[in-house]
Structures are given as structure tokens and as C-alpha cells.
């Protein structure tokens, strides 16, 4: 009998990489090393498929409105449209293919909106401050800002939020 560890994200509100992997939501290592790719941290069968029609590369597939999203990894260009449109703010783009640093694209809906070149605090899925990142790109769609940050090498799969200043 194979022992399968129980998912804990419903108790913690934090999903582990291993859990994303088991749900086929994590790109394979070889794809990650090729360049920017989307990661949809959407592990539950909720009735939503907004990302599917908006993906310009038709890389996201869903069998029904409640199915988990499936990305055809080689079709995904890492453009970040899904980051902008996902109502759950659960889409991210990660680029760990560069030598000097990792790059993470996240949705951001808090003030102040950082500008390109700003140094920002980088936060993990549990809100732990992981260090400092530099804002590389900022664009907006219906008030969701899509922000690409350069983060220290090795943190690409960990950084999921930024803050320009500490929360009160």
C-alpha cells in the first residue's frame, strides 16, 4: 500500500510545492528551466474557468467549469494574462531559467502600486518576509496590477506577494 500524505492546504491556507505537484499544477523541472511559465495555484474544484478563454496561447484546458485547470506547458508563453484575469488571484508566472536571479510575476491589488525599479519586500505563501526584490515590470487590467519582480536565485517558486512598505 502506498501511503499518500493528506493535503493540508484546507487547514493552513498555504499550498506546498509537493501538493501542487501531486495535483499536476506545477510545471515539470525541464519546462521550468526553459523560461517563464504560468503556475495556477488553484487546487479545488470551484466553478470557474475565466482563465481558459483569456489565455492567448490556448494553453489552459478545463474539462468542465469545475475541473482543475490543466496547462499545456509547451504552449504557455508565460505572458501573464492569467495573472491579470484570475478572480482568485491564484495565477503566477515564474521564470527560474536565468543564472543571476529568478523572476516572479504576481497579481497585486494593494496601495501603493510599486513602480519599475522600486525595491520591495518579498513575501512567501505564509506572509514570511523572504528578503528584497526589484520591480521589473508593472501593468494593469481592471485594477489588478500584474507585477514582475526580480528575486534572489532560488526564491522563484516561493515568492507570492510583495509589499512596498510593512503592513500596519
Amino acid at each position: 500500500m502506498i501511503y499518500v500524505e493528506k493535503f493540508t492546504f484546507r487547514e493552513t491556507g498555504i499550498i506546498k510545492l509537493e501538493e501542487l505537484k501531486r495535483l499536476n499544477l506545477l510545471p515539470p523541472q525541464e519546462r521550468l528551466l526553459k523560461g517563464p511559465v504560468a503556475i495556477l495555484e488553484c487546487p479545488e474544484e470551484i466553478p470557474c474557468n475565466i482563465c481558459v478563454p483569456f489565455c492567448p496561447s490556448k494553453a489552459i484546458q478545463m474539462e468542465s467549469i469545475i475541473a482543475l485547470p490543466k496547462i499545456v506547458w509547451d504552449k504557455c508563453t508565460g505572458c501573464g494574462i492569467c495573472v491579470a484575469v484570475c478572480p482568485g488571484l491564484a495565477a503566477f508566472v515564474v521564470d527560474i531559467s536565468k543564472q543571476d536571479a529568478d523572476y516572479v510575476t504576481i497579481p497585486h491589488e494593494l496601495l501603493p502600486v510599486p513602480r519599475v525599479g522600486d525595491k520591495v519586500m518579498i513575501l512567501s505563501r505564509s506572509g514570511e518576509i523572504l528578503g528584497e526584490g526589484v520591480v521589473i515590470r508593472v501593468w494593469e487590467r481592471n485594477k489588478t496590477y500584474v507585477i514582475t519582480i526580480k528575486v534572489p536565485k532560488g526564491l522563484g517558486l516561493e515568492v507570492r506577494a510583495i509589499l512596498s512598505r510593512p503592513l500596519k
Partner: protein
Amino acid sequence: MPHIDRRIYEHPIITFNRGKRVIFYFEGHPIEAYEGESVAVALYALGVDVFSWSPKFSRPRGPFCMIGKCSSCFMTINGVPNIKACKYPVQEGLVVERQRSWGLLAKSSILEDYKPASSEKIETDVLVIGGGPAGLIAALTAANYDLNVVIVDEHFKLGGQLLKQTHKFFGNVELFGGLRGFQIAEELAKKIALEKRIRVLMSTIAYGVFRGGYVGVVGENAHYIIKPKALIIATGAQEKYLDFPNNDLPGVIGAGGAQTIMNEFGVKPGESALIVGSGNVGLIVAYQLLQAGVRVRAVIEILPEIGGWFIHAAKIRRYGIPILTRHTIKYVEGDVRVRKATIIAVDEKFNPLPGTEKEFDVDLVLLAIGLEPDSRLAIQAGAVVKYMPELGGFVPVRTRFLETTVKNMYIAGDISGIEEATAAMLEGKIASLAIASRLVDTSRSSKALEEAEKILKFLWEEYRASPLLLRAKRGKEAVTISINELEVLRKKFPSPVSFG
């Protein structure tokens, strides 16, 4: 008068376009407010935390639901007592006073001078009670089949609880998915305004259903007797209360009430918050508080796991907001407003574990422990209802087309059992299409039925197939009956009222 300004001037999502400045009088003090604000919100914005005192023990009462479902904001306005200040728009020169006991008429001359408004009689095809997502979609659907519609809503703005939803909606693009709730409200209100067949009665209350199929509707200076061929009740839901010491202290607010204050009107509900309940409402309000610049200390949940969807939880966890499962609130303290909240861990049987108390210095405790369908009007009309914990309370028994045991009286949205706005809109559509199929000529009637069947199939087989909606789905299955069963119930519990 306290001198603070809680208005929000910068928000990441919403631009608050405040109307013309008006001055009204609150217990002798001139109050500056903006057109489009309610009296309750305008007072709260300036730091008035106490809206009334309980008649018996003179305990201070603050805002709670902010949508006209509770009584904590009853004030005397221009001499008339028991006015819901949360539903009363500010106007130049209003004289507002708080009530320290039962509401009393300021002077008897008000009664002597009172001339009842003449009653307008309206005959219409469809009467919709409630201008939220279910009601508005129902009205637009009926108008699309050339039916005349009257919408009655208690608020002075259309949209119901969509007005305070700042997150982008789930679902798919055809169901407004991707748009934010308040944007959906704006879009629907625009469409309604363009429909010549829809008449909207704002700031009015449907107070009763009467023999002969009449509905009484009253506004401040207006009275309507409406005789519709079909009635759709889309009155939504009210927030549930939780029992703990000092739960009536100002600062203990319904999570939805806080959303109204902050997202509909752009006023900060407080500085530091504790949220009780980790369902989607609790999780979403925590995120919205962050966006409004309010500190969120924690979300607590009595169950061993988070109640709402993971994605909503992840949105607040990544900013470091703890979600404490297996915890409940023990009590709150404060004199005229919450100053401190004490929480406590519970065991498997939800018994508090002494010694595990934690204290938070907060001025806000938001209750997000669930909603209760507002089925009062349906019950008054004589509809057969059933108590369904999985749906939040008493709900009318209905066919899959949402007709109740009162002939031609339909329900849609949260009154049929708590789900969310997308399901509410689909139900509004189904009810209206069923009505259209009865009222329009045969060629279009079959088209309406076909359309209804398609939506029913999507709602039951695809949308509600989500395991996260299973509890509500099972509840709805249990109160959805066949036409034959409906006829049996109608014979057994005949309603004195019918429409058509």
C-alpha cells in the same frame, strides 16, 4: 461630537465619487455629508459609533447589518422615529436624533399633519421584490420577453449586495465572470434604466401580500397597491448573530455590514479587526480590509479546517494574516466600543479549552458566521417553508422552476437558500423564464422553456457539481419538489393568496 474622518480617499480598486456636499443636523450639530451617502454611514464616517441605546438596559448599539435587515440603526429623522438610518439618504437640513428608548413621535402634530399618500394602483405582469443580482436579472429576463415589470427595492441604489463586492467574480465570461461585483451592479442598473418595460420603485418596502393577489408597497411619501400576474421574491439574506458576552457592543459588526460601510460608501469601518468565521465572506472581507488600510489581526474558525475556498484563504495568508482554526470568540470588552477581543481554542467537541485564551486589541470584531435567507414575505404570503440548516434557515419549498406553494409566486437568490451571486442570477433567470413561458404566446413560450431547461442543466449539473457547493446543493435538492408534490402541498396547506 467626535472629530475624526473615516472616509477613504485612496483605494486600490474603487474610486469613490462623492456627491454634492450637504449639511444635516445630528442632535443639534451640523454634519457635513455627501449626496449618495446614507445617514448612518455619514455619521459613522465622523466617528459616531453609537447609533442607538437598547430600550430596556440602555446598552449602546452600533452598526450591524447596514442593509436594512436589523434594527440597530433606528433613528428619529425629522421627528419620525424608527427610521432605518442605513437606508435613508442624507439630504440638506435633515434633523436626526438617536433613540434612547422605544422610538417615540417627537410631537403629536406630526400625526395631526400627516396626510397619507394617495395609493397608486399598478397592474403589471411581473413584480420583483429586491433589486439585487437575482431580482435584476429576473426583471431584465422578463422584459426581454416583452413583459411589464415592477422592481421594488428598499435601498436608494440598485444592485443589492453586488454594490459592496470588490472582487472579480468567478464563473465564466457569460455569467459576468471577471467583472467586479460593483461593476456588475452598474452594468445591470444601466440596462434596467434603458428598459421601458421596467419600472423601478426605489426606497420602498413590500410590507405584505394580500388576498386577491395584491402586494402592498410603501415608500416615505408613496403607497402602491400592486397586482402582478406573477411575483418573484428576491429579498436576499441577513447575517447571523453569535452568542458571546458583549456581542452587542458597537464595533461588533456583521462582515457584510462592514463591507457596505467600506466598499459601497468608502468609509473605514475601524482600525484593527478580528474576523470570526472563515467562510468565503470572512476571507474576502479580510482581504478587503487590507485593501482599505485596516489592520487584520486574525481570522478565527471553530472548525478544524478553513470554511471557504482555498484561493480566498491564500490571498490573505500571503500577507501574513493568520487563520486560527479550532478557535472561537470568548468575549469582547469596551465601554462604548470594542477595545479588546478574547479568543479561545476549542477541542473536537467545540468545548473551550481553558488557558488557551488570546487577547487582541481591536476596535472591530466582524461576524462572518453565515447568512440566513430572508423569507419573511414568502412566509407571510403563506408559502410552505422548511428549516434547512445547510441553506441557512427557513426556505420556501419550490419546484425546480422556483415556484412556491403560493400559485405564481416564485423565489430567486439567497431566499431560496444561501449560495452566491452567480447562482442567484441564474435562479432569477430561471424563475423569469418559467413565468414568461406561462404569459407569452405559444411560439415564444417554448423558447422560454427551452432556455430555462438549458440554464437548469448548467446550474444543477455543471455549476453545482463543485464539491465546495455540495452542502448547499443537497439542501436545495431536498426542498425542490415535483409539480405533483406541489399540488399535494397546496391542497394540504392552502394559501389564502394566489397570483395570476
